[in-house]
């Protein structure tokens, strides 16, 4: 049997061949994304309808971002194995008779080359049509991207065991973002220094990477860090005092879900809300933007993004929630969970409960950030609340409570939206489901847009809408009943579990209907109430949750 020959039989060639082999599929997707973007942009240039153009721009930008980010990962040696994702230099390369310099320079040099070339290609073919990018700007952006890429590699290879690595990546991204905007910022002490700063960053990245890898090769990072061991002991000592048993299997499973995924949404969203808002404000103050009355406007403008943050992030995290161990290599149920004497419905209920607790905590943190924002500047909280509505600050506060509840429920809906598809353990189903949701949302937007403009279309739509909604509701109920019956028969869910899901759906739906009734009464649009209530019942997940235990059964018993 002929094993075959390497095209470039040197260590460098072997390393490149391995990277190529590992990411062949990824590079294929890159090509497809590029081609799609080129087509979309071409269509826009040839004269696409006015309202489709922003969508095209959005789609092309998303393609670019997705393709480019995955390209960054290619040369970073991100690997996934039984213990999870490993973001460090693979040990098998460290044992080869190759100098550290070569190990560092090959991915950095060739990676950098690929990054810069890829960016140039994208700019020439796609980005040029989306916005105005001058030639000098292109060079600047390429250099900033290169610097970011190299420092990501330094981080991944030099600090393999640091736990707060996500935070460091965030800080790195923020720094590079600021460096990128440096030319646009008004004249400060740093103006004129932009190129030297970037050059220094690029020049120091390579030796830093070399040093980090050298230390790793010498075994400096073997074993858990002393700090990590100390921290583990401290937590154990603290837990000793309150060593109590879990009340039930549900409690234990809830604890597991919380420990694994519960902190994601509050951490990311709440962290961003609590940290970034003051940072941005301070940053703007430093650069001298927004003093006096514009400051209040600025803060008012930040309120909306603050409110949207949990909602947006919960949509992104929705697919992560369906996993049991988000760093697990495959989507199969881990063995230590598969052999627990718990129904599939029990696992699903623990996830739903965790999602609810997570949403509640996130919104509490967001409200706290909100208060911080409101405390800045002149006047007390009450006076500012009085500014918002004519009914007075107390009414405002009381009015906030149901809104907060609804926001919590909305976030919860986003988190559990993908649970039915995600629990099947087949990646293609999850992907197909996400894709169909995006398509559905786009279609709704297009419909709404057309209805706004075209009066005839609006009339026809309103004529058929009630029927459509009722049919959808009937279908939802039908699927749910079938799924529950199937689940009960196959012992995938207990009667009490099904009761909780149905009760939750009815309860939240009634809450929404009640609040909608109150609001519709207040704004004198009584006819609208029934449709809002119906839409509410449709949006709340029932069929999805009914299918989830069956999906998990399909995963658990292959």
């Amino acid at each position, binding site marked *: 049997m002929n094993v075959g020959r390497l095209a470039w039989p040197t260590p460098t060639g072997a390393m490149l061949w391995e990277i190529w082999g590992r990411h062949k599929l990824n590079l294929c997707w890159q090509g497809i994304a590029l081609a799609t973007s080129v087509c979309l942009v071409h269509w826009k240039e040839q004269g696409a309808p006015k309202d489709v153009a922003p969508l095209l721009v959005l789609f092309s930008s998303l393609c670019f971002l997705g393709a480019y980010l995955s390209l960054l990962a290619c040369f970073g040696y991100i690997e996934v194995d*039984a*213990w*999870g994702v490993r973001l460090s230099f693979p040990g098998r390369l460290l044992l080869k008779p190759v100098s550290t310099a070569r190990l560092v320079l090959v991915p950095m040099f060739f990676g950098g080359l690929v990054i810069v070339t890829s960016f140039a290609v994208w700019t020439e073919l796609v980005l040029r049509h989306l916005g105005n990018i001058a030639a000098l700007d292109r060079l600047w952006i390429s250099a900033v991207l290169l610097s970011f890429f190299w420092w990501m590699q330094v981080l991944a290879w030099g600090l393999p065991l640091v736990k707060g690595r996500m935070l460091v990546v965030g800080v790195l991204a923020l720094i590079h973002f600021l460096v990128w905007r440096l030319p646009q910022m008004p004249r400060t002490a740093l103006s004129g220094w932009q190129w030297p700063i970037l050059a220094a960053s690029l020049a120091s990245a390579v030796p830093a990477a070399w040093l980090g890898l050298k230390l790793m090769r010498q075994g400096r990072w073997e*074993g*858990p860090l002393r700090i990590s061991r100390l921290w*583990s*002991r401290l*937590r*154990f*000592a603290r*837990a000793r005092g309150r*060593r109590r*048993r*879990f*009340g*039930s*299997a549900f*409690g*234990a499973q809830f*604890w*597991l879900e919380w*420990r*694994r995924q519960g902190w994601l949404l509050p951490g990311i969203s709440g962290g961003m809300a609590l940290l970034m808002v003051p940072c941005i404000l301070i940053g703007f103050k430093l650069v001298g933007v927004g003093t006096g009355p514009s400051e209040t406007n600025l803060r008012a403008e930040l309120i909306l993004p603050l409110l949207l943050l949990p909602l947006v992030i919960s949509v992104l995290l929705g697919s992560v929630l369906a996993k049991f*161990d988000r760093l697990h290599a495959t989507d199969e149920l*881990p*063995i*230590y969970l*598969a*052999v*627990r*004497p*718990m*129904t*599939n419905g029990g696992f699903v209920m623990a996830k739903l409960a965790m999602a609810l607790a997570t949403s509640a905590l996130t919104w509490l943190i967001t409200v706290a950030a909100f208060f911080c924002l409101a405390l800045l500047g002149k006047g007390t909280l009450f006076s500012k609340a009085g500014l918002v509505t004519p009914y007075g600050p107390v009414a405002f506060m009381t009015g906030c409570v149901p809104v907060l509840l609804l926001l919590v429920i909305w976030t919860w809906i986003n988190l559990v939206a993908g649970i039915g598809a995600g629990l099947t353990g087949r990646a293609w189903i999850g992907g197909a489901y996400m894709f169909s949701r995006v398509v559905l949302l786009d279609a709704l937007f297009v419909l709404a847009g057309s209805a706004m403009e075209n009066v005839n279309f609006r009339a026809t739509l309103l004529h058929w809408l009630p029927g459509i909604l009722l049919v959808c509701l009937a279908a939802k109920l039908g699927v749910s009943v079938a799924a529950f019956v199937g689940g009960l028969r*196959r*012992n995938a869910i207990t009667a009490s579990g099904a009761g909780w899901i149905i009760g939750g759906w009815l309860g939240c739906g009634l809450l929404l209907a009640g609040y909608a009734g109150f609001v519709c009464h207040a704004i004198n649009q009584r006819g609208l109430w029934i449709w809002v209530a119906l839409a509410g019942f449709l949006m709340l997940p029932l069929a999805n949750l009914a299918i989830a235990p069956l999906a998990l059964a399909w995963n*658990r*018993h*292959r």
Partner: protein
Amino acid sequence: MKFPSPSSAEAVIAVSGLSRHFGSKAALDDVSVFVPRGSVLGLVGENGAGKTTLIKHLLGALKAQAGGVRVFGLDPVLNPVGVLGRVGYLSERRDLPGWMRVDEFMRYTQAFYPRWDEHYAGQLLEQFQLDPAQKLKTLSQGQQAKIGLLTSLAYRPELLILDEPSSGLDPVVRRDILEAIIRMVAEEGRTVLFSSHLLDEVERVADHVVMLQRGRVVLNGRTEEVRRSHILAVLAFAEPPATAPVLAGAHAVAGYGSEWRVLFGGSRLELEAAAALVGARVVEERTPTLDEILVARAGGKGS
């Protein structure tokens, strides 16, 4: 689904005609196994013979494509709670949640089993010398096997299923694990099913042995009977044969010149008859060990 077996009423595990295909490859082919209450079954076979696949069927992780599986008279796929609440499982790959500490993992597992014996768990923890403050991912392989076994034994399950419990472990740890298993077997009515490559362990501990080869059951019976149904004999030929002699019923033939060693499946009379057919006589014989039987059958030489 009919489960015809003399002791099926008492069978803790009843597998009947089980078949399973992965794509075109048959992982299990018409496998039938019955394990009565209170016995120890050793599952042996080469790598890839289908042992783990069979065990996964018992836990409900795989659905039977043909045939049926009943544990405690229940279908593990239709009734996971009823079956898994009485089963303790140690997996081959020790798939543990690395981020949990030892004490957290014990507390977590305890919540699922109402019959968890905290005192016994504490005893095992001390005996296995495990540090409750350590994270699972920092434990060595032997320690991971020990914690896996601890959390399977502590609630005194009626059925213990072990997939290669000794793989990759040093002799000291193996001894500890074997002692813990035997202590459990000595209690009334506990059943154990374990698969292992260490056949001397299987011979010591197992009442029954089932050998799988390429997904089929080739041996099934009490340990001594399986051994005694084979003979390791030396045949002397009057004239040295040119090529390896072929005997009907022999699983392996090796040697050189006029003396050849043969592992034969059958009685002594059958062996003498077969030997006479090829013109040889039996000069030496003994009962082979399970190890020798497995290697001979796996080698596939002879018929």
